[in-house]
């Protein structure tokens, strides 16, 4: 079971909830099961077979590099956040 935090503008699709608990061991399963709980939300998160280019899914606050294959440990927290780049020192 993972705890998905729903961004404010997507809460309308989840009966106003800010958090939804869903099963899944990969991000792909999480998104599929989230869509079952909040119909239509997957279409907002995905584009084709991947996460939308301007969006990122974080597992416990960290955005990994494996996309929808990223493993989700039991009890994990999933955040839906904008994809943002770093800068650079030196």
């Amino acid at each position, binding site marked *: 079971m993972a705890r998905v935090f729903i*961004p*404010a503008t997507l809460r309308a699709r989840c009966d106003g909830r800010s958090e939804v608990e869903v099963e899944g061991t990969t991000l792909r399963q999480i998104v599929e099961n989230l869509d079952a709980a909040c119909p239509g939300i997957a279409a*907002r998160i995905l584009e084709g077979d991947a996460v939308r280019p301007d969006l990122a899914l974080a597992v416990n606050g960290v955005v990994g590099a494996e996309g929808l294959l990223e493993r989700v440990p039991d009890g994990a927290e999933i955040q839906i956040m904008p994809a*943002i*780049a*770093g800068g650079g020192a*030196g």
Partner: protein
Amino acid sequence: MVTAEKPYKVVGTRPIRPDGTDKVTGRANYGADIRLPGMLYGRVKRSPIAHGKIKRIDASKALALPGVRAVMTAEDLPRKGRREFAPLGSVKISLATLSGNVMARDKVRYEGHAVAAVCATDPHVAEDALDLIEVEYEELPPVLHADEAMLASAPLIDEELHTREMATGESAEEPSNVAMHFVTEMGDVEAGFAEAEIVLERSFKTKMVHQGYIEPHNATAFWRHDGGLEIWCSTQATFVMRDHLAGLLEHPVSKIRVTPQEIGGGFGGKISVYLEPLAAVLSRKTGKPVKMTLTRDEVFRATGPTSGTAIRVKLGAKRDGTLVAAEGELVYEAGAFPGSPVAAGVRCIFTAYAIPNQRIDGYDVLVNKPKVQPYRAPGASAACFATDSVMDELAERLDLDPIALRLKNAAVEGTRSADGAAFGVIGNRDCLQAIQSSPHYRSELQGPNRGRGVAHGYWYNAGLESSAYASVNSDGTVALVLGSPDIGGTRASIAMQLAETLGIPAERVIPQVVDTDSVGFTSVTGGSRTAFAGGWAAHEAGLDLRQQLAARAAKIWGVEAEQVRYRDDAVIVGPAGEDGGERSITFTELAAKLARTGGMIVGRADSNHASAAPTFATHVVDVEVDPETGKVEILRYTAAQDVGTAIHPSYVEGQIQGGVSQGVGWALNEEYRFDEKGRMENASFLDYRMPTALDLPMIETVLVEVPNPGHPYGVRGVGEVPIVPPLAAVANAVHAATGHRFTELPISPAAVLEKLLPGEE
């Protein structure tokens, strides 16, 4: 000052950097130092107006000038779709934006926008040719400020741009200059403010500022007749450059090789492509290598500054200082194409503090100014300026010590930020306490017109892919091959982590940064990720070497590999031999035997770890304001930072001191000034005033070492967060000195005098 003892032999020491001698003797090869036989010199023709349609480009006179070899325009680049993307770290970037920015197509969107490029046998001739390229424009009214750009009546910079709602991906019906809207919400903001006993709401503005690296952008390209494209340049990201060129030129990745030269500073501004695709096309047209370098004027007008911003912050607190609600609205200028760092501003604005109820809105807004690029902790400094100015006023109103107020509200392990993410092990309170107990903060500041300010900032850091190959040489040294361009000394800090893993002295590891054909994919040097991820890859390559060396010793001794162990002191030990004594061989001894016992050994790692950890910084500054001239002098500055483990403390201190210096410049002097037509008025180092040695005191540093539990040596990134607090710290100090709140940067002498002189209110 370093606060922790470490169980390491190499990590935490201060060896001389491996590339140092070449740099102090002038022998290091930077991008502009490339010279190839038959090389041509390219220059860029740029728009003199901020907004207009290109009616006609006629290069015939330029082409007729003796010595000129070719001219190119956007017609020579493939047209890219708005939804075609190229990767940039964990983000994807629109190829239409990249392509449109490197060379204007149909329309110019800012003064300095490239419209054509020319190459010639001599740089002076290429310069002469620029005046002979005729461009006819239909001028359009420019949009220069984010607030006017957001109005429905504003002229559209891009008629096909519709505001996109980040979370839902939905686009608005009507076109707009607002590219993107972000919103993050947690708890119940209205209820939170209803509960508050004091509410402060203030608005802040900052101007566009430039990264200000001393080396101008440069690129040399050679398009071979077999289609192979060679690029030599100063870039923070060779592999990203390769991917972007492949997309922009529709040329196979396998045919492009990017060779990084030494890079003279980047700070985020040397990730994007500018000259490389132009030099490539000119080389294809001429069959010769083409070298292009920007002038300083072009660097200012046509490469990435960071956003000008307008930020509104509302904080609600209990009388004891406990924050109960926060609201933020961040409007960031993207420049002429989408892509400001407003999302990072949204992510960072309140994150250092535990606030149960928050709502943050962010807007990415087009204006007719250069396309912004990342600049050190992109988006976070302006956000911190707003929040920590209000925190300062809150402390004043509640009669609380400013550090005590921040300590009361500091996020700790488990605290959630507005996007739902909870912190792991962090050094947030540790930084505040380090300043609270510092000699500087405990000293008394005396004298007229003087004031002390503090501020506290946060940055999240990045992980991403890095590769490392390590070959053992017969003399007991190790050649370490890396893919991360080294800007601030990362070769040293990565080599030190491999030396630690192998148990050998730092000087015995010889690091080298190589081209994109010679090492595995390595992401951008940026996001403060290089010492973290590169060091991790080097560590893994070292573990691979340890295992292979133990196996080789086992083979030599005729025992099972499991019976042999590589000790941390670089001695390989095995079971007792026939004489009854433990078998052992040193790393150096074994290195000398490798060639004759099965060949040399290479350790390798392609690593990708998502356990980057955030950092915090607390700064305190004393200033003196000259009431006659309005000049603000920095008397004393101390910066405490949670640096994880300091691999090479001198370079960690250097990162902090450099970030502080840039932040002080941002606070006091630096700004892009435009006339009413959008032409930049101060595109030189004389008029764009960066701090000199005379403008700063020694910058005291306190390295608070809270190791990152998600890294073998506890590394957190260190390079970015030092630029986050200075803006607010300086503004708060100027308030303490003058009694005036400065909500707009820079706090230039003119701005100070305007507040200080009577009758100007």
